[in-house]
Structures are given as C-alpha cells and as structure tokens.
C-alpha cells in the first residue's frame, strides 16, 4: 500500500498512461498478454497428459490357443493399450518399433498354454520402446499390473476349484489418492502454468519495453525530461503488473471452467504470493534491461535466465527431487521454484501459510534483492 501511495506522490501516472497507450495501440500484444495465457492453459490442460493411454501395441502370439487369446484380451479391455497389429512374423517387430508405429510388443511363446495347464511358470516377452523413458516406465507399470492380475486370477480359480466354497482375496488393498484423485495432469499443471506464463509476461515484457526505448534512442528524450529514474521504473512496470494480474485471474477462471480446478486455500494468500512473485519478475526484467541495449539481446537473456529455467528447473514439469544434487542446488536460485510450491499448496492442497511460510519468506527476500539491485543498475544507466 505504502508503495502505491509513494508512487502517486511521484510523477508516475504520465508514464503509466504513455505505456498503456502504447500497449493499447498494439492490439496484438495486448491480446497476446491477456488472452493467450488462458487459451494455452485450456489447450495444455487437454493435451499435456502424463497419463499414458491408447499406447499402440503389437502382439505376436506363437501359441495361438484359447488361453493365450484370453490372456491378450486383458490388455485391450483397458484404455491403456490399443491393438495395432497381430503379427505373423517375428521380423515385423523391428520394423514397427523402429518406425515408431508401436511402443510395446508382446510375444507369447508357443508353450504358453501348456505351461499354464501344467502349472509351470509361463513367461511372456515384453518389448518396450524405451526412448521416452517416462512413458515407457508408466506403460511397463500397466503391463506388469495386468500380468499380475492375470496370475492372481489363475490362482484364485485354482483355489475355487480345490473346493473352497467361499473365496476371498487375502488382502484388501485400498489405494486412496490425495489432492488429485483422478490423477489428472491438468490439476498438477495449472499452478505450474500460472508461474510459467507470469514469468514470460513480466520478465520479457518489462525488459523489452525498456530495451526498446534504449534501442530506438527514445530513452534519452525521457532522460532529459523532468521524470526521475524511479518514476520511469515504476511507470514502466505498473502497466505490466496490472496486465499480469488480469491474466492470472483469467487463467484461474479457465482452470475452474474447463478442469474444475478450484482454489482450495485462501484467495488472500494466493494474491499475496502472486503479487510478491510478480514484483520479483519485474525486478528481473528491469535487471535484464539494464544489461541489454537491444531488444534482441534482452530477449535472449530473458529466455536463458527465466523462460527455460522456469520451464525445466522449477518443478513445473520435472520433479526437482529427481534431479542431481548440483542441479537441485541451482533450482534454489529460481523464484518460480518457491512460487510453485506455495501455489500448489494453496490451490491443490488447501494448505495454510504454516505449510509454506518458508517459501514466501525466500520469495520476499528474492523480490527485495532483485528490485534493489535492478533499481541501482537502472539508475546508473539513466544517469
């Protein structure tokens, strides 16, 4: 609040107005900043799925018996696999996997039904395309589960045949999935997308808007006007804060309408954390524009320091826990890392401040540092 009052007493409004007029005139940028984020969210929400479904599969059944057929059927009653082809010939396996026609091939050996009937261990060959390791390990998990289920059924049948009238499985296993019961990737990705999109809009647009004035030489005109550096900085960043806030609301709205993602925790906390994150992003944008004389350079620096790291290192898509220790250390340098933990806690888990106060603290320190350093640097550039 004090921030804004101070801003008012300064001569900030003319610059804010100028910046807004410039943004408004450029309809495409305004549209891109306001609406594309929610559009992306909707598209991503539907498209970005770690849930592995409809994996194309080929089967090579050497046995060709009733037993082997009923075994293979188990795979195709689930939504996880699609039968691409019944192979006639072992050579086809290479071709199909090489050409990415199928991801999995099941080979049922010729003695499969015999072994089942004799009560011996029957082996099934599972050939998996491992190139996409994540999809491959999930697919393997499904294959394993289906095969185990089949074994379990065979044993149960044997027990029933042996004359037990009442039969129950010995263990009742009840999985309960917290926070995101349908395991929908969209829920996991919505908070991440908010962080990603806010990072793109704040860092890139702030750094570009100042770098642009530097490149076109108009910054000198501003410098000789009675505008103070702090006024210029505030005036340049405020419009983007506003636009980002509107974009955030639009994203949350789209997340609710299309994916039923509701904010389980407090909206006040959400706005607070988001605001701190926005300030951090703007600080980074300022810092970049103090380093770059051209828009091209500003963009490249922004892309390398904020865009890609937020995508890869913040835990948006790739769990930080799985990264090597050194890289885990690097992730502490990213504001999005802290923001994401807090966002997920608020939106998905409905946790209170006690679950993530540390993240808020670090983020605040980060924001103050960024703003401080960049203001000092900017003053030097403007002086």
């Amino acid at each position, binding site marked *: 609040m004090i921030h804004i009052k101070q801003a008012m007493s300064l001569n900030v409004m003319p610059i804010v107005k100028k910046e807004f007029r410039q943004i408004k005139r450029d309809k495409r940028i305004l549209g891109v900043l306001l609406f594309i984020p929610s559009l992306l969210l909707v598209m991503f929400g539907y498209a970005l799925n770690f849930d592995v479904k409809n994996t194309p599969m080929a089967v090579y059944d050497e046995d060709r018996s009733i037993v082997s057929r009923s075994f293979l059927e188990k795979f195709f009653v689930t939504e996880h696999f699609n039968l691409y082809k019944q192979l006639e010939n072992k050579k086809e396996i290479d071709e199909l996997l090489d050409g990415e026609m199928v991801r999995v091939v099941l080979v049922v050996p010729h003695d499969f039904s015999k072994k089942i009937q004799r009560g011996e261990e029957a082996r099934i060959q599972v050939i998996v395309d491992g190139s996409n390791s994540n999809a491959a390990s999930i697919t393997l998990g499904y294959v394993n589960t289906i095969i185990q289920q089949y074994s379990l059924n065979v044993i149960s049948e044997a027990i029933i045949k042996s004359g037990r009238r009442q039969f129950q499985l010995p*263990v009742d296993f009840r999985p309960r*999935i917290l926070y995101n019961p349908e395991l929908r990737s969209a829920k996991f990705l919505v908070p991440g997308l908010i962080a990603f999109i806010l990072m793109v809009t704040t860092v890139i647009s702030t750094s570009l808007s100042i770098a642009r004035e530097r490149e076109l030489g108009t910054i000198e005109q501003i410098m000789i006007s009675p505008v103070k550096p702090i006024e210029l900085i505030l005036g340049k960043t405020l419009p983007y804060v506003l636009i980002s806030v509107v974009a955030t609301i639009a994203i949350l709205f789209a997340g609710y309408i299309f994916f039923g993602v509701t904010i389980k925790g407090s909206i006040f906390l959400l706005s607070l954390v988001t605001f701190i994150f926005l300030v951090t992003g703007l600080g980074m944008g300022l810092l970049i524009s103090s380093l770059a004389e051209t828009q091209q350079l500003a963009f490249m620096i922004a892309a390398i320091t904020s865009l890609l790291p937020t995508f890869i290192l913040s835990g948006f898509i790739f769990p930080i826990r799985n990264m090597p220790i050194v890289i885990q250390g690097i992730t502490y340098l990213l504001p999005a890392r802290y923001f994401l933990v807090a966002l997920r806690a608020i939106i998905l888990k409905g946790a209170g401040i006690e679950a993530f106060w540390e993240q808020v603290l670090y983020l605040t320190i980060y924001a103050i540092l960024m703003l401080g350093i960049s203001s000092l640097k900017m003053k030097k550039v403007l002086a």
Partner: protein
Amino acid sequence: MKAILHIVRKEFIQFMQDRKMFGISIVAPILQLIILGYAATFDVSKIPIVVCDYDNSPSSREFIRKFTNTDYFRVARYTDDLKDVDEMLDCGSASVAVIIPVDFQKKLINGNVAQIMLIVDGTETSTANVGLNHASVIISQYMQNIMVEALVKQGTRKIPARVMPEVRIWYNPELRSRNFMVPGVLGLLLMVITTILTSLAIVREKELGTLEQLIVTPIKPYQLIIGKFLPFIILGLVDVILVVFLTNLVFGLPVKGGVLVLLLLSLVFLMTTLGLGLFVSTISKTQQQAMMTAIFFCIMPMIFFSGFVFPIENMPTILRYVSYFLPLRYYFVIVRGLFLKGVGLNILWPQALALLIFGITILTLSSLRFHKKLE
C-alpha cells in the same frame, strides 16, 4: 550472387559486433543442453514412502520389507501416528503412505480379509502413477504367495501357474530420460534460435527504418532473403555440430545413424523454421510483436505439442491432427531415430518428405508475402 554475399557479410559483421549476442548464441546451446540433460529427468528413482504400522507383527514387517526390497521405494519414515502421515504428505516429504491396521496378522492367519491402506499424493501425476503401479504389483505378488502357500497347506498337488513378464527395453535400456531429452533439446534449440533470430533480423530493419535503405539499393528481394538467411543456416548447422560433439563427450550419446544424415535432415528442418521466421516478420511491425508472435504461436505450441515431453498418442484427436502441421514433430522422430535407434533414411524418409513439403510451402508463401510488402 555478389549481392547476396554482401548481405551475408553485413549480417555477419553486425552479428559479431554485438559481442554479447554472439556469446549468448554460442554459450546458450551448451548451457541449455547440459542443464536440460541433467535436469529434465522423469526418472522416478526412489519414491519416498511413509510407513504407519499399527500391527507391528512379523507379517506386517515382512509385508513392508516387500516394499523396501525393491528399487522403487525408499522409506522416509516409520511412524505409528496418522498425524505424521498427513504432515509428510502435505509438505511433500513422502509421496506414498502405507498404513497397516492393528489386526493385519491376525486376519491373515485366520483366513479373513486383511486390510491395507495406501495413500498416494496425486499432485505429481507421473510419480503417483508409477508408485501406484509398483505398489499394486508388490501387493498382488504378496497375495499370490499367500494363496499358493494356502493351497500347498491344503495338500493340493497341482500348484497353479504364474505368468512372469520378461521385459526387454529397446533403444534406451536404462530408461534414462536424458537419452530421450538430449536429442529433443537439439530440435528445440534449433527451432527457437532460428525462428526468433530470423523474424527479428528483418523486423529490426523495419523498426529502425533501415529496411527502406536496403530497398532503394539495387538488391533484389530474393537476394535480401537469401542473404539474411544464410548466416542463420550456418549458425544452425554450427549448433548441430556443437550439440553432437557435446552429447558424445558429456553424455556419451553418439549419433548412431550417422552425422551426415543428421546434418542433411537438419538442413531440411532449418528450411521450415526460417520460413516460419520470415512469415512472422511479414506480419509484425515491431520486434516486440514479432517476438510475442513467435513465442506464443510458433514456439510454445511446438514445445508442447510435438512430442518433446508429452507423447502425442495421449492427446485429444484434434490436437493430434494439429501436430501433423508442426515441423518439429517430424524432426523429433528424426533426431531420436538417429541418436537412439540408429536407423537411417530408409526408415526416416516419410518424416524427411513431410519436412521438405512443409519447408517449400512456407518458404514460398512467406517470400511472396515479403515481396508484396517490399513493393
């Protein structure tokens, strides 16, 4: 020809003069490749579990041992308080909780149904999925053992058969995400760098007003386009060589399918990205516009919908069709085929053909548009 060379020289001089830019164009790919190679990992190494064993009996301990004996789980904490379970799941220090009620062993011995509760943190869907699958396999095997034991005790002569999967993983036997990501990063880098730099290179002249100076010189539009493009083609190919060198050195991942094929097909791919960059520049007035258009309409869809991380098979039908119009989709199949599978043109020709068609179309279209703009 001479005119083209002049433009190429001008572009190179401009590029080299901007030292920071030059540094970034060379350093960025290296840095990104290494960080991506190490960080972009889905390898769910050991999922942390919290075990809440109320029974604390030989059976329950044996059951827990089934979890700890695999490479998939790591016990973060043993506890006998449900509050700890909640807390650990809430703050993310455990992803799975196994809760065994008091009467677990008693029920097993009496032949009643023993209950086990498994709680999974669903926020990270990938980890949750893998964890859930491993857990159900372990529990299913545990049940099978109990049932077979019971049958043996009953005196059944014929023990029922079990099916065991014999898994073979091709192309990437250790299932390392790195091997999948690194070739993909090559595609991403090429796309991002060339699309953005091309679109900016032309719009910059527009914005600074120097394009008009170029127009009044006797240089023809096609010469201008080729002259502007050549440096980026060279930059792109240098990046390819750099990446090939690095992946071999740092990650031990050679191009099994041959470097020459890779360079040839990368050249075809560059046609498409340069075409897109040119197209963006014909519809943008300022660099800011060009950049935003390139990011949101070319780069982001390509990152997300071409199969870089998310398999295309999982997408809704409409998006699957959309992905056919993204050149990166074909290039990903090409680089992964060349790096991981070691296949050649005999397998990859459909992708190469698709890129060629796309490249020629977009280049012709945007050159025509550019011509019109200049006249």
